[in-house]
């Protein structure tokens, strides 16, 4: 029987009064504007002849429909080299990187949050820095150790020590890519898993002990299932990011012609044939969508509420004689992933002439030197350069605003997705929020450029404004905060909010007094990752900045191009200092707000 209009009306009115539905709908609209429209434009471009296609094909008719781009990617003589082989490389490296990064990150999180390992606070302070450092610093460090005469220059330290040239497989390609990038990406897992571990009530583990389970069983049957959602989130983040990353795989792979799909995407965009790039990007998106879908299936039946309306207590696991072994393992990971590259990076900023590691070659000129016509064509050190200081201010402003807004939206997404579990709305939202992560930054920036240089209805052209930078960075970083919003919301019991509803608290009040405080600690990773990512963002915003909205990273270009790597490295060190400082402040604030 067809329900009468009245029933229908009442039903929808009932559903629409649920806050998570309202929020869900609002968020879907927001994400549609920020994410889906650029995405649709991408899809359209793959099936339409582009202006630049006139170079590839004599039959190109710009503006007309065509399947040319698809044929070129999937079934042309080039397909093997521009698609299938790079795809295989992308899959192999990404899976290996994700597994390795998860192992390192989860272990690190457990050691720092849940055990009595000595110096764990100190180690914890360093643990996120690998993600702050550009991954190529690790790659450079790798080559300093392992390079052989294939790429010329001075031989690596390995060759010096062992007297034999490094084999190519150890110096370039798969092995170094996996090792350097897993050391670079483990902070994703570290942040998400430690967020989950912090919110585990010791009662749960004690309950296991009372029932006679040994420590390993508790870890396997109690702790592990609780952090599973966070682990899976970090797998998704690491896997997708590794699929899309260009710099380091190119740097370490090109000498032996080991290319990944991200290389194809990047080179097609710089060749101004974006349609072909978008198709490759879609394949990456499909793969990640499949991973997310599987994740939803797993999480669907296995999530655990750990923050309930009862007392809450923290307890540490005593490592006993393993204590020092754990310390050595954690400290050496930090040493490899943080101290060595950071040391090399700082040293490079202090070299009067690049690649000369002698003491006599040290100088502070690139930091604080006054203009000297004999050096660096009269450029002053970066701390005396007003343009750079202005850009630093822009960077900070942008990162804080973006991190703050995306953080709040992330919590809202978490709320709408978790409360609306299994509804189409919530899965739509979850999928939507993840899309931008997979669209290559440079392509995403180009799409925003073409969309926002024009007036859209009542909205004036945003091109050239600071707001546009905020919007594009927010859209791009939503997955971080959405993932951590969802993971942290999964742990909050519904009874808490229900109790407040019973006593008549309005939704705004419930959100401010209950949901926000309880999820803040768990959402911190999203905030921090967004802050870091925005500080370091370059390719996403390079097309959208104008002279008065320049950020720090866009200033490195000129120095790299002129061969003054010292200036460029000094800017990166400056970014690292700002990020570490920002993270420190965030943590202090975060601690005060949580219980």
């Amino acid at each position: 029987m067809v329900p009468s209009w009245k029933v229908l009306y009442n039903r929808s009115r009932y559903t629409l009064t649920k806050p998570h539905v309202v929020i869900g709908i609002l968020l879907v609209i927001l994400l549609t504007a920020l994410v889906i429209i650029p995405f649709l434009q991408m899809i359209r471009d793959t099936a339409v002849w582009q202006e630049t296609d006139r170079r590839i094909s004599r039959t190109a008719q710009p503006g007309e429909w065509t399947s040319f781009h698809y044929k070129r990617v999937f079934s042309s003589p080039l397909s093997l080299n521009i698609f299938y082989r790079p795809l295989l490389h992308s899959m192999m490296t990404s899976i290996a990187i994700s597994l390795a990064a998860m192992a390192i990150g989860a272990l690190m999180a457990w050691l720092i949050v849940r055990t009595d390992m000595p110096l764990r606070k100190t180690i914890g302070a360093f643990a996120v820095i690998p993600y702050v450092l550009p991954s190529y610093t690790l790659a450079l460090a790798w080559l300093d150790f392992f390079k052989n005469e294939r790429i010329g220059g001075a031989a690596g330290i390995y060759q010096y020590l062992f007297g034999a040239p490094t084999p190519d497989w150890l110096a370039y390609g798969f092995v170094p890519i996996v090792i350097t990038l897993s050391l670079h990406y483990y902070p994703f897992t570290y942040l998400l898993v430690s967020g989950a571990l912090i919110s585990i009530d010791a009662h749960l583990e004690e309950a296991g002990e009372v029932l006679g389970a040994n420590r390993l069983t508790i870890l396997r049957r109690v702790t592990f299932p609780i952090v599973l959602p966070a682990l899976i989130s970090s797998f998704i983040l690491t896997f997708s990011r590794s699929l899309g990353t260009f710099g380091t795989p190119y740097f370490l792979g090109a000498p032996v012609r080991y290319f990944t799909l991200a290389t194809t995407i990047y080179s097609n965009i710089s060749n101004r044939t974006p349609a072909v790039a978008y198709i490759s990007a879609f394949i990456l998106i499909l793969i990640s969508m499949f991973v997310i879908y599987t994740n939803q299936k797993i999480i669907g039946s296995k999530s655990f509420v750990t923050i309930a309306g009862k007392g809450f207590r923290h307890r540490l696991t005593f490592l006993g004689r393993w204590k020092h072994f754990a310390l050595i393992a954690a400290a050496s990971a930090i040493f490899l992933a943080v101290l060595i590259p950071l040391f090399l990076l700082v040293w490079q900023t202090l070299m009067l002439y690049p690649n000369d590691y002698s003491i006599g070659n040290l100088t502070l000129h690139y930091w604080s030197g006054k203009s000297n016509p004999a050096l660096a064509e009269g450029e002053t050190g970066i701390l005396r350069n007003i343009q750079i200081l202005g850009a630093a201010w822009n960077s900070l402003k942008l990162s804080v605003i973006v991190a703050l807004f995306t953080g709040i939206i992330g919590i809202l997404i978490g709320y709408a997705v978790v409360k609306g579990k299994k509804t189409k709305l919530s899965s739509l939202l979850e999928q939507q929020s993840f899309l931008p992560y997979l669209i290559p930054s440079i392509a995403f920036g180009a799409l925003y450029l073409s969309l926002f240089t024009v007036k859209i209805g009542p909205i004036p052209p945003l091109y050239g404004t600071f707001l546009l930078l905020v919007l594009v960075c927010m859209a791009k970083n939503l997955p971080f905060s959405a993932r951590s919003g969802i993971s942290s919301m999964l742990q909050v019991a519904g009874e808490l909010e229900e109790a407040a509803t019973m006593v008549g608290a309005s939704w705004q009040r419930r959100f401010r007094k209950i949901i926000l405080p309880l999820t803040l600690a768990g959402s911190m990773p999203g905030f921090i990752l967004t802050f870091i990512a925005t500080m370091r963002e370059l390719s996403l915003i390079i097309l959208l900045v104008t002279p008065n909205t320049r950020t720090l990273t866009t200033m490195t270009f000129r120095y790299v191009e002129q061969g003054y790597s010292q200036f460029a490295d000094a800017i990166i060190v400056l970014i690292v200092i700002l990020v570490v400082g920002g993270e420190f402040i965030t943590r202090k604030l975060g601690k005060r707000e949580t219980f």
Partner: protein
Amino acid sequence: MMMKKTLSLTLMVILFLFILVNPSWGQSMSSKETEEWLSKSELGRYEPKVYNEKQIYEKARLEKEVNIYSYSSRVHQFGKTFEQQYPGIKVNGFDMDSTEIVTKVLAEQKAGNFVADIIFLKDPSTVLYELMEKGYAFTYVPTDLRPVIPARYQKPFLTHHVSLDILVYNAEVNKQSPVHTLWDLTKPEWKSRVLFPDPIKMPEFTEVLATLVQHSDEMAKEYQRVFGKPIQLSKGSRSAGYEWILRILKNDAVIAGSTNDVSNAVGQPGQQKPPIGITAFSRLRDKEKNPKLVFDVAYDIQPVMGVATEVVIAVINQAKHPNAAKLLIRWMMGDEKGGQGYKPYFVLGDLPVRTDQPAPKGSKTLQQLNVWIADPRYVWDHGQETRDFWLGHLK
């Protein structure tokens, strides 16, 4: 039921927004507006017969500033001297990749949101076919300079200077260049020892490869001279130029990510078996930044020592500061001694197009060097084929 409603609502919103955005795609300025702007700015056929610096400066002062998108960071140097020379006009120099410049200009033109006044970039074929042919960019050659610039550098666009891609060798191990012809690079003794900058990453090297293909006849003749027999083309290669590309790839040429990597790898002292490599002539300046580097340019290579590519300056359609733009372009072209405005480019490795200017210290003039000049039209028509050929034979 609820979900269906939400979904259809979402779809409606998407469609609505899509329609709002859609009409602006591909829209370009009508030629009437362009014509008006040209006449108001006194450009193109409206340009006065005499270059009158004083008059242009007066108008430019009212415009107050000029926005230049530059592939080269040296924009900040000539910008500074310009501001001293012409007080009251601010130069907003914006440095980024040539590709990014083109992308930005195209978006600005399509949206009618005009920011750039001047573009200064590589990749002449794209400038010619995607910007000038569509009326998005125009050539401005100050009339007083016309007698001192060869016609080929004035039309269809003004070339600011020419940059060269050449072969370098390690000068510590070799007294002189260890190779004498481009075909040497395909010989077994150079297996895995030739560094080649990635043409997929750097469009400039697609220009280099396409130019070698264009000159296939000369490449074939040179092959005959070196090996004493006519060249045998492999399956899939259509001419001697392609055959050269195929053979250096088969000879395991090492792909380098930047020209900087090449000069550093070749020039590092203390190597026993240093490689050779193709790189930009202007990398010679690296030796000033790092005096330990010991590489030199191989001048005596047959059939040519290298390929020259042009760097273009153009005025952007509907530029808001056309007079300041003219003044800045004139400043950038320098004077017969080099000049303050040209000074940042008066260095080893960049070659001026002005016939009345001497070559920079330590360099020969463009006319004295044995090079092929990349032809923007040929690169537009065949560059992509060459690129695809390279991609298809990587492994």
